[in-house]
């Protein structure tokens, strides 16, 4: 079970389905998820909606053997911190990849997957995961 209600799922569609974040034109920094305030520029910020690149590299990873509620059927699974090509970082599961290929520096690309089991309102959470590419 993730903490999720229908309005939350609905609100996060652009982010979770399309990797929409934003970009501050003042300090040239990409944010994912989108931020309301640019932490670098604050009121001088020029934030514009922007889709993130769909590829990046693994900077750290872990294989999760004991997952939170709603992920019982998934374990074990890999989670990674990924730096996207525009330097924005993202935490995501790594799927469809050989275990040996999941390492620091590996190139990954976004795929669309079911994230966790049905919650009590009957909504299935979908979103991004990543897979290692050559």
């Amino acid at each position, binding site marked *: 079970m993730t903490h999720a209600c229908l309005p939350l799922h609905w609100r996060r569609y652009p982010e979770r389905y399309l990797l929409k974040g934003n970009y501050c034109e003042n300090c040239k920094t990409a944010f994912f998820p989108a931020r309301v305030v640019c932490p670098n520029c604050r009121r001088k910020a020029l934030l514009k909606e922007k889709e993130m690149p769909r590829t990046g590299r693994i*900077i750290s990873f*872990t294989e999760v053997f004991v997952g*939170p509620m709603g992920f019982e059927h998934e374990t074990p*699974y890999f989670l990674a911190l990924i730096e996207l090509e525009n330097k924005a*970082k*993202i935490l995501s*599961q790594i799927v469809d990849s050989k275990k040996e290929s999941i390492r620091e520096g590996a190139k990954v690309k976004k795929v669309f997957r079911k994230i966790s089991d049905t919650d009590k309102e009957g909504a299935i959470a979908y979103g991004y995961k990543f897979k290692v590419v050559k």
Partner: protein
Amino acid sequence: MRSVSIIGAGCTKFGEHWDKSFRELIAEAGMKAIEDSGIEGKDIQAIYGGTMASGRLIGQEHIGALIADQLGLTPIPSTRVEAACASGGVALRTAFLAIKSGEYDMVAVGGIEKMTEVSTEEASFALGGAGDQETELFHGATFPALYALLARAHMQEFGTTEEQMALCAVQAHKNGMNNPNAQFHREIAVEDVMNSGYISSPLKLLDCSPITDGAAALILCESKKAKNISDKAIEIIASAQASDSLGLTERKSLTELAATRIAAKEAYKQAGIKPKDVDFAEVHDCFTNAFILAIEDLGFFRKGEGGKAVEKGRTQLNAEISVNPSGGLKMGHPVGATGIKQAAEAFEQLNGRAEKRQVEGAKTGLTHNVGGSGATAVVHIFRKLEGKK
């Protein structure tokens, strides 16, 4: 300038208290602290209580009022403080500031968590709320997973090994043998940690702090007054707190907890001391790699050398610096209580009351409490209050 001292401390045993409720635990710790300080309940002017997830764990909010009620201290103001696993440390700092400001002279501060009323899965879900719900927990990141990502980054950058991390657990269990309130009284070896099974690689079961019930409380008093009424007052010579991004993705570095480094720097400045002047420290080792991060970020060892320092035994009891003489969080981590328990340990150590775990010649002690994966850090430094009645 007003100064603040601790004049009494009380802790429950840390462990699985199936026979005791949340309210019984906080009342037990609170009464012990009041008794230890030698004051009367009516002398207390305000209460601050740290708890992280009572709503999810026992279905009870409004903990401030509950504490005042259970201790028979109504109608004085009583306020809950929440900062995830740093709830206790931030409650202590809030109480410190309340006296420092001149508003009160005598304040009780407590910390508590009752974590075994729900299943382990529910408890870990509640703890997951200390990270970023929408970008971490949603994707299946547990708390051990977040620290595992930090552990791997440290291993990659500095060559820190799983054995070095295991040694942190070995040291914790060894020190815990001398702590009557510890959740475990069992020595372990590196092989035990290495064979304990991955929870989230590279972290194994014995790299993780346990699920614990427990409470701790302190009585804080303005120092001039403390001198007159107590011969065991210890002065809080520094109190500092810093914040960082809630989630890991916005961190500038994954090989440090910047909030710890910044709070520590501020604390050393307030106290007018250097890291090498600290005789003992109670650091926030929710995972073994958190121990390594802490001893580096607090300035005891250079960045990247924490693992080797542990390997060489430099953090053992009465070695170069005694880190976690109580056994630390491995000996029980009732999240909201931890920051208060650490200060209670400093109180025992500086009063020479720590028995078999006593740090020889302990003059200056430091406590370090972290919330989440490093989004909050609180550092306090203590010294025996000069001159008595």
